[in-house]
């Protein structure tokens, strides 16, 4: 770790490279999960996707965690793509962690369900029945958390899961990370956990590496808390840790 600091209630730390950052976040999540297991025999976890989560997920699956006691949810999924689509978050999570750790139970958010209202309703109910111990999230280039882009983010959203339109920046980020061949292929809508659903989690571990995210990180830490940069809301959460690398932290003043 090169440095750590606290802004409002948000604890942030900067690491030398994405691997070091991923290891630190994985250790943090491990200790929270094991603490929950010790306390109540099981734990509930939300996982995030995207290029920013690679090093963290790689590190997490090597940690001593009894996955047989962990129920897993995820943050979001594109509308209308199958779990075989290369950009599917379900596919991503299966291949990058779930196949190897085999958790007790996984709730997949099926963006291609025939009845999306019912799917979101079922997912909301399942979330309500499983108070989340740790939510692992990232921050988008536009400051989004999950798919709560600035135009649709609502800090007082009454819903737990909702269908949103993705903004241009967000869709360009997905194109830029190489998940889709052209911008037209990036879905225009997605299902996402809302901001209150995320903020209601006991602990939030936010992993944000890469130069591309430097501005979003700067805004998260310095802008006024508002949906203009949805991630600013994390500064009001009592138990959130932000894991950065030197590149994503490059715009933060020393």
């Amino acid at each position: 770790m090169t440095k750590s600091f606290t802004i409002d209630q948000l604890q942030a730390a900067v690491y030398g490279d994405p691997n070091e950052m991923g290891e630190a976040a994985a250790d943090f999540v491990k200790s929270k999960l094991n603490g929950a297991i010790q306390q109540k025999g099981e734990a509930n976890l939300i996982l995030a996707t995207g290029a920013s989560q690679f090093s963290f997920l790689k590190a997490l699956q090597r940690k001593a965690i009894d996955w047989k006691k962990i129920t897993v949810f995820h943050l979001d999924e594109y509308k209308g793509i199958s779990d075989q689509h290369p950009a599917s978050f379900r596919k991503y999570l299966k291949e990058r962690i779930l196949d190897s750790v085999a958790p007790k139970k996984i709730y997949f958010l099926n963006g291609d369900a025939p009845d999306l209202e019912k799917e979101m309703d079922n997912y909301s109910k399942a979330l309500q029945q499983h108070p989340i111990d740790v939510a692992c999230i990232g921050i988008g280039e536009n400051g989004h958390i999950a798919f709560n882009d600035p135009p649709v983010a609502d800090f007082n959203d009454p819903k737990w899961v909702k269908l949103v339109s993705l903004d241009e920046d967000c869709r360009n980020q997905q194109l830029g990370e190489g998940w889709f061949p052209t911008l037209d292929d990036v879905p225009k809508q997605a299902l996402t956990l809302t901001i209150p659903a995320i903020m209601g989690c006991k602990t939030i571990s936010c992993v944000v590496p890469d130069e591309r995210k430097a501005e979003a990180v700067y805004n998260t830490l310095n802008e006024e808390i508002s949906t203009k940069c949805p991630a600013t809301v994390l500064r009001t959460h009592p138990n959130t840790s932000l894991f950065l690398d030197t590149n994503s932290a490059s715009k933060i003043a020393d």
Partner: protein
Amino acid sequence: MKFLTLCFIFILALMIPIESVDTITLHGISYLDENPVLVSLENGKISAVEQPNQNTDGPDVYIAPGLIDVQINGYVGVDFSGPDLTVEGVIKATKALWKAGVTTYFPTIITSDLDRIKKNFAILAEARKNPEIGRSIPGFHLEGPYISPLAGFRGAHLEKYIRKPNWKEFQELQEAAENGIKLITVAPEIDGAIPFIRKCVESGVVVSLGHHNGSAEQIQLAVDAGAKMGTHLGNGCANEINRHHNPIWPQLSNDAITVSIIADGFHLTQEEVRTFYKAKGVENTILVSDALDLAGLPPGEYVRGERKLVLTPDVVKLPKENVLAGAASPISKCVGVMLDYTGCSLKNAIQMASTNPARLFSLYGLGEIEVGKQADLILFSIEDNQVVIKQTYVDGKLVYKQD
């Protein structure tokens, strides 16, 4: 009124499914809580799980997810390791297993001549492409040839085919299997086993420790390398072992190891089954049949290779020596034995025979009755702690109905 009419039809039809356009609704008793439940199937998936109207008397059958057997050597005379394996044979065995409530299984090839292993994996890989039965075979189990050569520990595996772990060789087998090998049973104490286990795990193959005489330390090294399972704990082990230092205690004590057990009423004593179950708990136990190809055939004398075998209704024996030669019961029988031996709930017994293997092998659509899951289901009664399969559904289609 429409709903009441429907309910009336339920009472009349008892277990007969109601078909509307594409939906089948099954009425039975949930294996989870023993309450009445309606399960609707649509396009091969479970589309609804609902409580029936309180006033409705449902049929007296349980509904559970189809059983999953990750260790089965053959069935109805089809030997997955045998010289005569054909795609037709695999189809025949699969359909016969459906009748026994097994909707998913890993055909298991044991220690044999390498060319035979390759040839048979290629046949199994071909069989998996069959649209009718392919989805019942999400993977294969390779039991050996990298196991202990010692008598007792090697069990019925032929010593002359037992080998040292060889990653390149395994890759050739995996290639013949078209990447279908999802589970391998390995002995952790033999030369090169630990790096081999690590490579298997990295390639996505689940490693199970079996037919071994590993020490506590060797078992821990294997777990550190990513091994997750113990194969048929208590079997594939010498009759006489050290009371302190033996391969059983470390596998019982280590929570990172899920053990499979052959609870057929013969391969383990009631005390062993109870003890293993208490030590490992429902989460860390899975039921396997380890059935020989004679399973599912009428009792009698059979010749296999140069040996004469006797199939009783329950187990295969060597008549000369009067010892067990292998298992002959599908895991539906083992579910009944678990209920009988341990007094566990039906929910737990089914968890060990379906939910746990689905979880361990990342078979995401299987092992639970839940909206969106694959409609692989069994309807059954329990008579004197024996599971009697009444109907089996695979991919939403009725594939077996008791006469």
